[in-house]
């Protein structure tokens, strides 16, 4: 395009972004210049195909279902956490103040602490593996 109408003008004409005072001149040029008319027609067809492009959006549920689930999930975890800690604390206090023998209390406490430590170390191992797992993104 080596004339008074440049590629930017052609784009602006195509997209309806030319100022009114320039519009008529560019349009007239495109009508008479073979090279510009050919370019304009090709770009116009491409634009048309793009506009009508039927990108499938997936027939799944609206994104809102998934978004809302994830928005409310932290509240669920928080309630579960607070509830569990309260119940555990109440259980421990009740058990420790119960008329059971001391050695029974100590043995039960050791079992509970042991289980908690094992669970915690398994969770930490899993988290460490996740951070370095090269195949975590692979969908099976």
């Amino acid at each position, binding site marked *: 395009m080596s004339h008074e109408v440049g*590629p930017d*003008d052609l784009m602006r004409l195509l997209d309806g972004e030319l100022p009114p005072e320039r519009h008529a001149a560019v349009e007239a040029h495109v009508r008479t210049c073979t090279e510009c008319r050919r370019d304009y027609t*090709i770009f116009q067809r491409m634009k048309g*195909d793009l506009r009508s*492009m039927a*990108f499938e959006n997936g027939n799944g549920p609206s*994104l809102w279902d*998934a978004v809302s689930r994830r*928005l409310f999930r932290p509240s669920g975890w928080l309630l579960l956490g607070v509830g569990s800690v309260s119940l555990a604390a109440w259980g421990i206090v009740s058990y420790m103040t119960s008329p059971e023998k001391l050695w029974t209390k100590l043995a039960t406490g050791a079992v509970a602490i042991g289980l908690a430590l094992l669970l915690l170390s398994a969770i930490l191992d899993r988290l460490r593996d996740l951070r370095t797992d090269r195949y975590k993104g692979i969908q099976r």
Partner: protein
Amino acid sequence: MESSVERELVRKCQAGESRFFEPLVRAYEADAVRLARALLGDVDAARDAAQEAFLKAFRSIRQFDASRSFRPWFLQILRNQCRDALRSRRARARIEVRDTAPEGRNVPAAGEDRNCARREASETIRLGLARLDHEEREIIVLKDLLGLSYAEIAEQLEIPEGTVASRLHHARKALREVLETAGVVQP
């Protein structure tokens, strides 16, 4: 969506009333998936990215200036999300070459079912888009798929408005060359 309604919804969300986020999600989810699909190439990744972008938008909605339009702000978040997704996809060397377009493919023959021809043209364009640079693909998608004005594109890409036309020209020229190579557009 009317801007006054949108502003009101944003204000409610900023006040912590998450149920008012639903109309915003429903209003922009189609655009979001369309944009993400064009940038990422497959619909599942697009839905994931759109979902993630909506969550990020909600979590940072308190920092959003409610007097501005929600759409460009959200699209910015989504574009960043898509860019991150592409980056991590590359980092994991999981780029799937989904180029199934046979070389020398022709425009559907005249007389063929119109819908079928349109679907085929869309598919060819989509494959053409996939071969462009991210920046080229992005500007074409913002203009032709989402119908943003030059001013809105300039705001999205943080470039001067005068640069939009020349960037669009380069991007469309690149797409045209890809389609010509594939035999879809006659040089």
